[in-house]
């Protein structure tokens, strides 16, 4: 029964979280449970894929929340892809976490794994949400359960960043998104995701623009400027959190919701008739460029990566807002492509920190010779960010460019070209210096180090390989993306 499978895919990480709490005293057992849960979750989620590829849309309603408003989960291609990414990378990330959390002697590890599992459950809740209300609920839970992960260290700067994190994410979702959702409900009497949207004929004129504005800025997790500040703030978290949650799960939940809202709430045709998305293309384009320029100037590696993420997220938003089928397809693939690439980069950053306690880009001269696996993976993932074949990043950029060309949106094309140059500008020097420059020995750090612990190396090698494999074996993501645009 695919319907029950949906419930299991969300229930298993929740059950796992309880198991983690119960076995908190025995670290090895606790980590075993995390790994088993992650693998099982992925297998369960994966078992839905053939059904969805065949064109079925399994759906299950848990209960009626308010008259006419139900908690419903429906698996459609976009959610399927997002679910696969989230649950698949959780396995790798768990292996990585074990190496990282132990290597750095972090406190409160039980709490860490506990909230991590709940975060994954809410990510799957978002992925499989059958209507906007279910999505919103999962979205809010994801914000709240990642807060303890962001503030994990409990230090004053973590608390301060936690405020920014929560303030922006809750402020936008309650202040704007909830308003948009209630408005949608009031205008249409439904919150279901439907092919072709639900707003056509229900709202018109300026209301469409306002509603779009409320949604786009209400989805703070998509980090459209100027509501992006929470993402660099979240970098205070342990690196596994930055890697899976703030490069993949949380931020992808944001752009995923953006695509969902544009495709299934507004509907392409309705939006292209009402001509209200142009501002969004410009804002997203601006975010791409501005965030890249800020990234260039960051010396802290994780912050540089965070700004790069902000820029890459806006690719998805811009490509969707162009409303060309091909570019939307590119946006969908970019969700997957950026995920594997960016998680690798964060894995590398955490690997460097664990082995050397270095955090700044300027400290990385010559490190490639000591940590060849880490920096090799970093190089491959960087190429994917820039969009060089044969990496996944090339694939998505190609579709996005084709889409922009097909509707002759020259602004978008220009942004993509300039941004590619900027990406090159902030990634290539790191790789070059790591491999070809001598270490300066001046910063007081111990240079007698080798690679990071084995679990870390395994994890980042796996995702770097994934970045390449996704280029050669893109069948499933391409097919799912095809189905999103209705082919």
């Amino acid at each position, binding site marked *: 029964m695919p319907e029950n499978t949906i419930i299991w895919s969300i229930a298993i990480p929740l059950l796992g979280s309880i198991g983690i709490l119960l076995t908190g005293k025995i670290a090895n057992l606790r980590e075993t449970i995390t790994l088993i849960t992650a693998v099982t979750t992925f297998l369960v989620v994966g078992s839905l894929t053939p059904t969805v590829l065949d064109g079925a849309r399994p759906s299950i309603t848990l209960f009626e*929340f308010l008259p006419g408003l139900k908690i419903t989960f429906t698996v459609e291609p976009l959610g399927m892809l997002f679910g696969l990414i989230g649950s698949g990378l959780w396995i790798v990330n768990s292996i990585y976490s074990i190496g990282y959390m132990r290597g750095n002697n972090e406190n409160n590890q039980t709490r860490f794994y506990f909230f991590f599992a709940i975060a994954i459950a809410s990510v799957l809740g978002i992925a499989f949400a059958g209507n906007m209300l279910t999505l919103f609920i999962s979205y809010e839970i994801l914000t709240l359960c990642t807060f303890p992960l962001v503030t994990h260290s409990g230090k004053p700067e973590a608390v301060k960043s936690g405020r920014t994190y929560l303030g922006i994410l809750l402020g936008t979702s*309650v202040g704007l998104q909830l*308003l948009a959702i209630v408005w949608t*409900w*009031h205008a249409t009497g439904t919150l279901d995701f439907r092919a072709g949207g639900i707003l056509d004929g229900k709202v018109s004129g300026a209301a469409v623009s306002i509603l779009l504005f409320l949604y786009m800025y209400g989805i703070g997790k998509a980090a459209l400027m100027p509501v992006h500040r929470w993402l660099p703030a979240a970098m205070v978290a342990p690196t596994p959190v930055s890697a899976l949650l703030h490069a993949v799960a949380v931020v992808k939940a944001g752009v995923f919701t953006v695509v969902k809202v544009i495709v299934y709430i507004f509907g392409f045709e309705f939006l292209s008739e009402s001509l209200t998305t142009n501002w969004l293309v410009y804002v997203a384009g601006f975010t791409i460029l501005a965030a890249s320029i800020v990234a260039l100037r960051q010396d802290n590696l994780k912050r540089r990566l965070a700004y790069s993420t902000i820029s890459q997220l806006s690719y998805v938003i811009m490509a969707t807002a162009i409303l060309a089928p091909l570019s939307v397809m590119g946006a969908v693939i970019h969700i997957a492509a950026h995920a594997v690439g960016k998680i690798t980069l964060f894995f590398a950053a955490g690997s460097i920190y664990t082995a050397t306690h270095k955090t700044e880009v300027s400290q990385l001269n010559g490190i490639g010779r000591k940590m060849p696996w880490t920096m090799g993976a970093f190089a491959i993932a960087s190429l994917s960010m820039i969009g060089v074949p044969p990496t996944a990043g090339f694939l998505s950029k190609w579709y996005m460019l084709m889409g922009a060309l097909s509707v002759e949106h020259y602004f978008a094309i220009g942004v993509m070209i300039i941004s590619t140059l900027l990406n090159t500008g902030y990634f290539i020097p790191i790789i070059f210096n790591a491999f070809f420059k001598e270490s300066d020995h001046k910063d007081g750090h111990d240079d007698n180090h080798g690679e990071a612990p084995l679990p870390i190396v395994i994890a980042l090698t796996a995702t770097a390989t994934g970045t390449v494999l996704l280029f050669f074996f893109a069948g499933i993501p391409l097919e799912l993306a095809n189905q999103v645009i209705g082919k």
Partner: protein
Amino acid sequence: MLSSLSPHLPIIQVVLPLIAAPICVIFRRTGVAWLIALVVSWLSFGISIVLLEQVISNGPISYLLGSWPTPWGIEYRVDILSAFVMLIVTSIGAIVMIFAPNSVHMEIPPDRTYLFYTMYLLTFTGLLGITITGDAFNLFVFLEISSLSSYVLISLGAERNALTAALRYLILGTVGATFYIIGVGLMYQMTGTLNITDLAERLPEVASTKTILVAIGFITVGIGLKLGLFPLHVWLPNAYAYAPSVVTVFLAATATKVAVYMMLRVYFSIFGTKMFSALPIDELLLILGLIAILSMSAVAIYQSNAKRLLAYSSVAQVGYMVIGISMVTTTGLTATILHLFNHAMIKCALFLVLAAVFYRIKSVKIEDMAGLGKAMPYTMAAFIVAGFSLLGVPLTVGFISKWYLILGALEKGWWPVAGLIVVSSLLAVIYFWKIIEIAYFKPRPEGAAEISEVPLNMLLPIWVMVGSNVYFGMNTDLTVSAAMSAAKSLIGGAP
């Protein structure tokens, strides 16, 4: 025997606690008094459930005292709204009484604890009487019973400030009750009746007279004072802050709710919606409500005492309820009535946690709560969940209220109002998070005494309340349908 009692349940509901109160005084023994209060609270809770069921299946119940026909005799009248509010009051009473013994024994001198239970029972009687009576003057009597006994309850607080807080409440509360009775007197002068149903029939003839308009004014101010409606709320923060912890829990969760009930009753069951075309009370309520939710939430942010903080938050929450009334639509009233229930659940849970905190650390200053996240993990976890409900996080009752309130505002096309409602709920995030950060991210001060969790009979009521915050946040069958049908009958005219 039970079946022969069943038609008399409305009067039993009031007489039971009324008789129990003096019995407590006769015994003068703490344990006995507590047991009586506990049993009575639970019996009343049971009666409320039965009454609500009866009303839902058979429609309103009319009970004539001494079988005197209306409008000469006093009528007790239970409709969905009153049964629903009664359910709120009695369920809170039942929960609080389980929690009470430890907290009361610590905060109130042993020779006075029996007085606490006596006064609690009288307040309980008054609140139930207000919701059940169908007579405008009888309502005043119960209002005075509940008010006088609650002044005593507040004055039982350990600090001397409790006395001035009680005095201030006494003065303003008496002014409020007097204003109310002046209004009732004016109505009596014009119609010659005090029965609510009868009033509703006779008032339309004289509705546009100056006398009736003045009556509306007096009653609005009178109830506004009891309600803690901005700017008539000045008695409330101190009363809540200095009252014994358990008293705060009970009053915060029930007294203002019953005052809102009075307002609904008078506006919609007596005057009817036409009143709002004669006097712009709805606009006034909207403006006061908006000021309340914004200014009081902002004031709450700057409080250093957690009880005062939540007290200001309560004044803000009353603002939400009043905004719902000001919409004069089914959705608006549904939001108000839902929030009566939901806010009672929320504030009861939050104040219970503070009572538990006070029980352990003898303080509810926010700075003294440092490190409690580790020291009292179950209590503070309850605080977080209940706080989420206050903020309106989905899957808690607070979200349901917010949903209906925003929906009501959008139905009216009140965009700015919808916007201000969400802004104020974001202010709530700030003041709530202030406590969380200190409890979880600051360590206990060095040299502070070791503290442990509170005993199970305190923890259990807390978690039952937190559980209902979540349960009724997911299963809204009972609350939404009851609130909606109550709202419909109010908007439709006299019940």
